[in-house]
């Protein structure tokens, strides 16, 4: 299961109405500004705003749109682990759901997500050692955990070979479809 196959189950941030201004566009604005010789330029586009000021040879102030609401995503993850299932506001539209887990782990790691709704178990039976621990190296097909669904124990196997860098669900917790279980850094 690749990180791109399933989306994050819980996102709570409202999406901006306009596409975000890119760094390229801001760069271009700065170039235009420098050529122009004006003292101040203020560009607003929906939630995005850029203000450029010249004050006799001092710096240019750039208020760029916050590109990555890191704090928000952490908060969101925390809420998820707390067992809350509250959902984003109605008007939040297209989002980049995958961005959420990024701050927790390395850029290159992939999420192992639950393919079904059920209960997460980290070992074959109560008391036995967990299938995997953080830092373990796993091969494709290695059993990572069990999701119990309708009295059936479903073994969840790794689809990548790599190292477990994070575990995201406590033993015995319910999980949704698509919920992130482990982060694996491929090798």
């Amino acid at each position: 299961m690749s990180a791109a196959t399933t989306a994050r189950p819980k996102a709570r941030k409202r999406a901006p109405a306009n596409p975000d201004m890119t760094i390229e566009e801001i760069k271009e604005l700065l170039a235009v500004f420098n050529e122009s010789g004006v003292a101040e330029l203020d560009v607003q586009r929906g939630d995005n705003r850029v203000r450029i000021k010249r004050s006799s040879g001092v710096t240019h102030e750039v208020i760029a749109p916050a590109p990555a609401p890191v704090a928000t995503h952490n908060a969101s993850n925390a809420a998820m682990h707390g067992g809350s299932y509250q959902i984003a506001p109605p008007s939040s539209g297209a989002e980049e759901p995958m961005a959420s887990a990024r701050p927790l782990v390395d850029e290159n790691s992939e999420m192992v997500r639950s393919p079904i709704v059920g209960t997460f178990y980290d070992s074959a039976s109560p008391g036995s050692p967990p299938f995997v621990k953080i830092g373990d190296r796993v091969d494709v097909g290695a059993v990572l955990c069990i999701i119990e669904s309708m009295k059936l124990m479903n073994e969840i196997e790794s689809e990548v070979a790599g190292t477990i860098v994070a575990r995201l669900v406590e033993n015995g917790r319910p999980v949704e479809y698509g919920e992130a279980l482990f982060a694996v850094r491929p090798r």
Partner: protein
Amino acid sequence: MFRKVLIANRGEIALRVICACKDLGIQTVAVYSEADRHSLHARFADEAICIGPAKSTRSYLDIPSVISAAEITDSEAIHPGYGFLSENSEFAEVCDACNVKFIGPTAAVIRRMGMKHEARRAMQEAGIPILPGSEGTLKSTEEGLEIAHSIGFPIMIKATAGGGGRGMRVVRDASEFGPMLAQAQNEAAAAFGCGDMYIEKLVERPRHIEFQVLADEHGNVEILGERECSIQRRHQKLIEESPSPAVSPELRRRIGDGLKVAMKAIGYTNAGTVEFLMDEDGSLSFMEVNARVQVEHPVTEFVTGVDLVKSQIRIAAGQPLSEVLPANIEMRGHAIECRINAEHPETFAPSPGRITGWNLPGGIGVRVDTAAHADCIVPPYYDSLIAKLITYGGDRTEAIARMRRALDLFIIEGIHSSIPLHQRILAHPEFVAGNLDTSFLARTKLACSK
């Protein structure tokens, strides 16, 4: 009463059930597909569980996912809404096996009502008028042709497992019978996995009239009047109303009394709808039973004052009708529902996308059931119903005036909607006069019937 109910549906009906639960002080669990992550039913439920990807066979129709969601949330009951798993007897059975109360009839009754020729037989036994036709399924083309001759052409060939017009053929001439039967059989086998067919006399230009049933688990049955749903396009209802302009109090009482006997004999429980065709002489003939809450249930709620979804939940919790319903239900006033679909009002092409402008009509006599809102996305994966606009008036004239006004004040921008078509229908003299039948849209040229 249940502590927590899971709603195995989406859109306006999921929100409708959430409202009923809130009104009863019951906690709610929504399930949603990835496409419905930001939908209002997921937002307004106390808990919401993602059960799969957008494709409904892997989410809203996936029994293990829905049951698992009920299990991990300790839900005591499941309301299936309409569509999806609502008339799936296997799902009702799995619920039973998992000790989750299915809010609807028993699996056995759902199965029997799903076999159209069986439902037909059950009604006939209870003295409800049925259309002339075959007894049971056809054994052979020859037998079918013989029956067709005996009742006289034109006739309908229908699949016992049918629905939505599939596996159905009108035959006007004996020479067409063989080929039509083969076509219909193939279609039914492909669509429903069952090619069993039966024959009924064709009623030309019928009115579609249906009766609302509530039955408790103690053998009591009540009939809450009828709805007329004759304004249809390709067997899809567009406008419904209650009462029907064509049903007299006497006919209402007679059919109601018969249905009480029939539904009791069938062992029917919870809410259901018995559909009839009315021919040009005003005679009703049984067509089929819908073993669930109906899209158009709000018109009955308006004229009877009974909350049908709340009643479903209370019946499933074991309450007798004597507690669920007021002592005597009287029908008062008139209600009309327009189904507002995300589709082009002329081509009927689906129109999913982002709703950029949205103004809901309100004011006196207006009810809106919707899960859409400004800036929401109508996904392309599910049915196109985005809102039900229902108006009530002291009489049909007042209900029509209010519906016209409400349609004028309903703004939807960014996608197409059926509002312009509804406006044309509501302004048509034939509609105003109550001259309705299922060919209305075609004969008034307001929309092609195809």
